[in-house]
């Protein structure tokens, strides 16, 4: 079956305007008669909940943290893109649109991306009006920096804490509406199922994480802003509690999951130091401007101190393999190259999973002071974590998972194939194609939450004749019972292993077989092993403590159970996509020089998967990607 994106017809620059005019409106006085559930309080969810409440809708917002201010959007460092052209350097809506489409390796939907670029400028205006303290020039105007994949300076930033400041802006807007009684906020509350009535999303089942109480919530529409699924790999730069549960529960209820194999790996993270590690820390990619990447030429030298390895015995492999780009080779290429040298046994540091990023030459050339000025905070962070002084010895870095482009399938209105279910931010698949550009995640989350969903949801609500169903409806009763049954089952296995041990095992398999470079053999092996781990999980899991109490282990168990189902879909999607594009690299499909070999003839589509049961083959639905505006070209960084 072919999926309809519902992208409006007409010239690309007029699609959104025309669509806004064509959409049905809810009369201002009638908005209070509609209720909307928003799950997640990050940039997308928080912005949406606040904006919908301002419009007059009755909003309930749910987050599993102890406060909406703690959503993982807070950890984004670099910045947010917007086509303001404040630097007079030739930026435009069209250029931002083009850069994002190209950066996504021609696997994103044109109409969505153009709209994203169009509303980007408004986001900055909105944030400034809220009191977000962006960096400024001495003249009082806003400051910009440049970022990867762009030749203009369009990135706005607030020191290294842009995500934090934007989230606190959305949180303050949300808090205002909570204080006014327009949003009912549920902290420490986790969505455990979606309720679908007559094919439409009409509510959710929620567990209060403090009391364990299960409650039903009904609404005219449900919005998921629940983030990405990087933690299926166990180790990632995501926060500990990030998970796929809300999205996966929706997928189990019929929402299609699109392009799950599009995952992004960041080349400059602090390497794993041991089996006990719980998370990876990202360091700004800008370090590669002045650092040289190398490993020893000989395996025997890996145990030596870097200072004891002679210049002639060092392999500056990026400079060797990509002489024109050198240490600034694109993210995916430098990530894969690091894996290759480590696979050859030439990796450094604990476990042999690391490469050196050496600043000695730059310090010699520019002086210590210049390097301190540029990267002082990063060197300090590195020292806090590793105990090593990177001014005196090279840093060790290794790639890590940090963003997922795939997500629940949505149409141009950000509505899933299940009417009434809207998906925003990282949780949907729509705007980044096979690869996301830096500083674009914050832009998309806020665009969806502030400026897209508040319009498109009205179009859906205006066409609803029936009001939100009673929570006594049989589908609510059934969904709640299923949640109880599942929790009881998790509690009653009483096996020997902790939820964490299963997560660890799954993550290791995913990283090794479905990580940076994928091949048919490894993917098939993973597809055989995942069900085994899942079977073992349901036989040998042990959840201690009570169900009617704060129970971190029970929360974790439920999330790991969902990862164990979702991982299979991700792997299958990677196997079926027999091409390399963006963050998805299949070893069988590469150019002689190691570049990704995209196959537009056979794979220029969105793969949207329909769940058919655990262990059952999902059904693939395709949304063809028609490029009317941009010519699909080979993404070259030579």
């Amino acid at each position, binding site marked *: 079956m072919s999926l309809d994106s519902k992208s409006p017809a007409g010239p690309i620059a007029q699609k959104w305007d025309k669509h806004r005019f064509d959409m049905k409106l809810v009369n201002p006085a009638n908005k209070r008669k509609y209720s909307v559930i928003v799950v997640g309080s990050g940039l997308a969810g928080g912005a949406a909940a606040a904006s919908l409440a301002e419009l007059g809708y009755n909003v309930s917002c749910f987050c599993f943290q102890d406060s909406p201010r703690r959503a993982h959007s807070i950890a984004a460092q670099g910045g947010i893109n917007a086509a303001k052209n404040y630097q007079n350097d030739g930026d435009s809506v069209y250029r931002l649109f083009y850069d994002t489409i190209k950066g996504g390796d021609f696997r994103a939907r044109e109409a969505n991306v153009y709209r994203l670029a169009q509303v980007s400028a408004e986001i900055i*205006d909105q*944030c400034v009006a809220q009191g977000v303290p962006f960096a400024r020039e001495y003249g*009082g105007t806003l400051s910009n920096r440049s970022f990867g994949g762009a030749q203009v300076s369009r990135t706005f930033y607030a020191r290294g*804490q842009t995500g934090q400041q934007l989230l606190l802006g959305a949180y*303050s807007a949300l808090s205002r509406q909570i204080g006014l009684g327009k949003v009912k906020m549920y902290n420490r509350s986790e969505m455990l199922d979606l309720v679908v009535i007559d094919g439409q999303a009409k509510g959710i089942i929620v567990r209060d994480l403090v009391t364990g109480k299960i409650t039903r919530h009904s609404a005219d529409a449900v919005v998921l802003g629940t983030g990405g699924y990087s933690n299926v790999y166990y180790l990632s730069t995501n926060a500990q509690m990030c998970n796929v549960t809300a999205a996966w529960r929706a997928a189990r209820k019929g929402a299609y999951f699109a392009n799950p194999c599009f995952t992004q790996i960041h080349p400059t993270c602090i390497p794993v130091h041991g089996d006990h590690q719980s*998370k990876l*820390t990202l360091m700004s990619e800008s370090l590669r401007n002045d650092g040289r990447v190398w490993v020893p030429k000989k395996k025997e030298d890996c145990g030596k101190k870097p200072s004891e390895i002679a210049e002639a015995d060092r392999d500056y492999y990026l400079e060797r393999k990509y002489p024109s780009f050198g240490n600034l080779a694109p993210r995916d290429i430098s990530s894969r190259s690091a894996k290759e040298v480590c696979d050859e046994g030439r990796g450094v540091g604990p476990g042999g999973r690391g490469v050196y990023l050496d600043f000695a030459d730059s310090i010699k050339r520019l002086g210590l002071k210049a390097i301190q000025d540029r990267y002082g905070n990063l060197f300090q962070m590195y020292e806090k974590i590793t105990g090593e002084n990177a001014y005196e010895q090279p840093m060790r870095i290794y790639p890590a998972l940090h963003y997922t482009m795939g997500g629940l399938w949505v149409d141009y209105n950000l509505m899933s194939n299940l009417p009434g279910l809207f998906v925003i931010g990282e949780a949907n698949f729509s705007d980044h194609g096979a690869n996301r550009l830096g500083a674009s995640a914050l832009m998309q989350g806020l665009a969806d939450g502030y400026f897209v969903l*508040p319009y498109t949801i009205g179009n859906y609500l205006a066409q609803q004749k029936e009001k939100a169903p009673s929570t006594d409806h049989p589908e609510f009763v059934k969904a709640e019972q299923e949640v109880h049954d599942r929790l009881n089952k998790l509690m009653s296995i009483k096996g020997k292993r902790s939820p964490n041990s299963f997560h660890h095992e799954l993550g290791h398999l995913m990283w090794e077989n479905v990580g940076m470079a994928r091949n048919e053999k490894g993917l098939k092996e993973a597809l055989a092993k995942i069900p085994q781990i899942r079977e073992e999980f349901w036989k040998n899991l042990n959840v201690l403590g009570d169900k009617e109490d704060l129970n971190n*282990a029970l929360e974790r168990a439920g999330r790991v159970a969902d990862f164990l189902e979702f991982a299979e879909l991700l792997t299958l999607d990677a196997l079926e996509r027999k091409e390399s594009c963006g963050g998805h690299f299949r070893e069988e499909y590469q150019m002689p020089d190691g570049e990704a070999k995209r196959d537009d003839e056979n794979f220029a589509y969105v793969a949207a998967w329909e769940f058919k049961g655990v262990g059952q083959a999902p059904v693939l639905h395709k949304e063809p990607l028609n490029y009317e505006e941009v010519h699909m070209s080979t993404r070259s960084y030579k």
Partner: protein
Amino acid sequence: MSTTSNSMTFNIRIWRQKNAQTPGKLVEYKLDGISPDMSFLEMLDQLNERLYAKGEEPVAFDHDCREGICGMCSLNVNGIPHGPDSQVTICQTHMRIFKDGQTITIEPWRSTAFPVIKDCVVNRSAFDRIIQAGGFVSVNTGGTPDANALPISKEIADLAMDAAACIGCGACVAACKNSSALLFVSAKASQLNLLPQGKAEKDRRVLKMVETMDAEGFGACTNTNSCEAVCPKGIPVTFIAQLNRDYAWAMLKGAAAEPKATVGGA
């Protein structure tokens, strides 16, 4: 890989409390095989895995991003909120700064306004209610002027950013002998009061936020500066001075927290 070559042993005394209704106590655990490269929370993960293996319920503690920005982690370590390392959260603290064989005492934040939920987890929703009372600019989505329409000097923008760096963890309250929340309140109020966008409702903001802070059971500030000493983001107490000035000014002007719809007025 193995961490046995330079592994450390600790005597962990940690607060165990079943729930808000049941009294808690410090329980001691001996923990060996800890790598100096582990973060403090990874050390606690280890403790929990071992408790798990023994069939003992793991210790509940709040954490999420583990990179010092979400503000979720909240442990009092050897009497100091966020432990002995300066200007970092406990999630960014690594075991190498402790001595092998050391006793480490771990407790939740202690404040009437932050009741214990379980073990080391406390309820900090009072902070949310303070923000809901006035920690915002009253502007709806859409229709805002161009971001560059109103120049803001770099000095003011930087100062506002210093204040805005607060992660809302509550260490300031936990460190204060009076459980005052003034560093938290002053950071948010100062950020918004400094910027032209927030000036219009400055008086109302400080009155509402301070009023809510008092109602939530936080104590008064007696200028011991312990809050600044433990703040993982280094927020200075000068913002408290700023808030005191803003508050006094708002009181002097007779601005009521809820403006009365009377003509003329005082």
